[in-house]
């Protein structure tokens, strides 16, 4: 009976996946959701077909990039893999990924499953699958997380992993990982950056993690990497960074990232310090899986950014870089990457206030936008999206000259205007619900500008 329901659920799921692809849909939660209605045990059963390890990647920021890097590394070894897509990181989306990968009978075997998982979904997922390794990128205060919900989320993950034989890969620079110390059966591994790897500009946002989770005293910092990440110690109880098992050091930021994790040299086409963190996290997990350094190095060198994670488009011979922003910490890091770019540049910012963006746009005032004040190379800022006025105001009050601000609420008009400006490079920052629309517009412009001259007028 169960076997019949499993096969029916897989068939329905596969048909729905096909339909949603034909419709050009990004989100792939629906097929998994329907399949689970037909056979609630489907995820548990398909997950049992993983012969090697199930790996969960979670945390506030960087989980998509980190899990995609790790997927690339695993594929480099020739191993087979089930891996869910960005934006489908809750139980239904994860179920969809298994249905898409398996055969009609659900008997196909895979070496690994790599599951990017929303923090709040980790306890639920652990009821259905048995991971061998969980990688946590960091815990930051998020848009919806202002009343101590972060602590609650960390606690429920802690309760869910307690007593399970899991390798837990944690960020040594994040004070909140102290919650996971001394858990029975769980083996903790720590990665992080050596002190002095990256600046210590004090940022104002995210005070959440700055208090000791053990005794509540305010932590003292020897240096900040960003937000609450850094080298800390507690004057109250002596709690401090755990010793690192995997240490990032020797960081070079330009023209692209170069760093070492212990003695392994890595080069990446990525930019931005937060991506260096993602690399250290992915590489640490890969080392724990026993993957050879040459596979890791090759995969990281070849790995290109995906949608909204510093994906590059070439329009009229100039690069335009698309970046997803969703909270103050991520925005600070994105702006840091923009400022580190020495080229003459223009910036486009699409701010929406739909549910997936966070209805409350006040988070832009918690970000350190003032950092752009001294960057004379930003020639214009185009403000777009449903709340174009709010982001324009934020820029103005951050000290950016009002006469260089342009408001174009319509995304297409705004991006076309951006593409017509002079400069060496353009940056497109977008909140979630405008991201895929921006990407589509950029792809269109890229295609048009690549067409042979004379056929299509490039600039009207």
């Amino acid at each position, binding site marked *: 009976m169960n076997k019949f329901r499993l096969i029916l659920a897989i068939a329905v799921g596969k048909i729905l996946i096909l339909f949603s692809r034909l419709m050009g849909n990004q989100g792939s939660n629906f097929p998994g959701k329907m399949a689970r209605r037909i056979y609630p045990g489907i995820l548990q059963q398909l997950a049992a077909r993983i012969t090697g390890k199930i790996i969960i990647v979670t945390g506030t920021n960087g989980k998509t990039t980190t899990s995609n890097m790790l997927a690339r590394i695993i594929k480099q070894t020739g191993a087979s893999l089930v891996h869910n897509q960005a934006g489908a990181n809750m139980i239904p989306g994860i179920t969809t990924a298994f249905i898409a990968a398996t055969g009609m009978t659900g008997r196909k075997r895979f070496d690994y499953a790599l599951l990017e998982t929303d923090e709040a979904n980790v306890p639920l997922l652990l009821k259905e699958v048995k991971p061998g390794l969980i990688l946590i990128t960091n815990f930051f205060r998020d848009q919806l997380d202002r009343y101590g919900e972060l602590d609650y989320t960390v606690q429920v993950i802690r309760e869910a992993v307690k007593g399970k034989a899991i390798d837990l890969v944690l960020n040594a620079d994040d004070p909140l990982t102290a919650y996971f110390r001394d858990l029975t059966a769980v083996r903790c591994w720590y990665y992080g950056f050596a002190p002095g790897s990256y600046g210590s500009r004090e940022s104002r946002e995210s005070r959440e993690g700055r208090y000791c989770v053990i005794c509540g005293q305010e932590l003292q910092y020897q240096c900040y990497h960003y937000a609450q990440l850094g080298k800390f110690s507690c004057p109250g109880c002596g709690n401090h960074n755990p010793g690192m098992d995997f240490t990032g050091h020797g960081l070079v930021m330009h023209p692209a990232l170069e760093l070492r994790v212990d003695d392994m040299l890595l080069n990446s086409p990525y930019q931005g310090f937060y991506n260096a963190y993602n690399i250290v996290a992915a590489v640490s997990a890969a080392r724990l899986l026993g993957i050879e350094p040459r596979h890791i190095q090759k995969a990281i060198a070849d790995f290109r950014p995906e949608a909204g994670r510093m994906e590059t488009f070439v329009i009229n011979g100039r690069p335009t870089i698309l970046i997803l922003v969703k909270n103050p910490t991520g925005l600070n890091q994105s702006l840091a990457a923009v400022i580190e770019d020495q080229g003459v540049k223009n910036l486009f910012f699409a701010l929406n206030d739909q549910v997936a963006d966070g209805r409350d746009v006040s988070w832009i005032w918690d970000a350190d936008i003032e950092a752009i004040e001294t960057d004379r190379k930003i020639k214009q800022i185009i403000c777009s999206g449903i709340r174009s006025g709010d982001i324009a105001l934020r820029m103005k009050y951050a000290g950016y000259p009002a006469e260089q601000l342009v*408001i174009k609420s319509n995304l297409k008009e705004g991006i076309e205007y951006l593409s017509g400006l002079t400069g060496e490079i353009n940056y497109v920052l977008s909140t979630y619900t405008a991201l895929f629309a921006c990407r589509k517009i950029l792809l269109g412009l890229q295609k048009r500008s690549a067409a042979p001259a004379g056929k299509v007028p490039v600039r009207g």
Partner: protein
Amino acid sequence: MADFNIVHMYPDLMNLYGDQGNLICLQKRLQWYGHRGVIKDISLDGKLDYRNIDMLFMGGGSDREQGLVYRDLFRQAERLQEEIENGLPVLFICGAYQLLGKSYIGAHGETMDGLRFFDFYTRGAKDRLIGNIVITSTITGAEISIVGFENHGGRTYFEDTELQPLGRVLKGFGNNGEDKGEGISYKNLIGTYLHGPLLPKNPAVADFFIQAMAERKGITIDPILDDSIENFAHHQVKSQILGG
């Protein structure tokens, strides 16, 4: 050029939803008017030296943090009330606003004392009042609209019918979601549930405080700023709220 000293009260405890944007706004506008806005942070056990204070600002915080702040403010409440009576400009948002009343009654009946400056109380409830809000107000003499975003569990009820709300709710919840009142306005004090933050998108309210500060210092300020972006942002969200 004069220095305008604005005290940010308990920034480490009371600072939610971009509320510090209000200070960024005041500081920038003062600079554009040719003066200097100096922000001073005061936290627990700090002393308020009113000879050098032109305005007080406090944002919202969680219950635990509000309790700490209440105990600290209570020891200097008398002087603070005197300064408010004398017209000190004060902006208290959300949790800070609630502290000005008689009490906060939690969802399970537990009562936290307030500073009792005004005859109102706040009752906590589980479901929070969240969303964009637009109100009309006459604090500047003319009728203006004020836009913001509210997110509060507490419902505030005025017991003294003489108390003036900051404005009337056009769309949103306001003090309690029932009587259409939002916030409180008393001399140069404003208490309100509006985040967003409040001042950048409502330049008339920002200038209300700047004018009040200037007047107390014997300085004249001509409202000469180009507020086209401010007004655009204001009307953009206002039309979305009223249209939706």
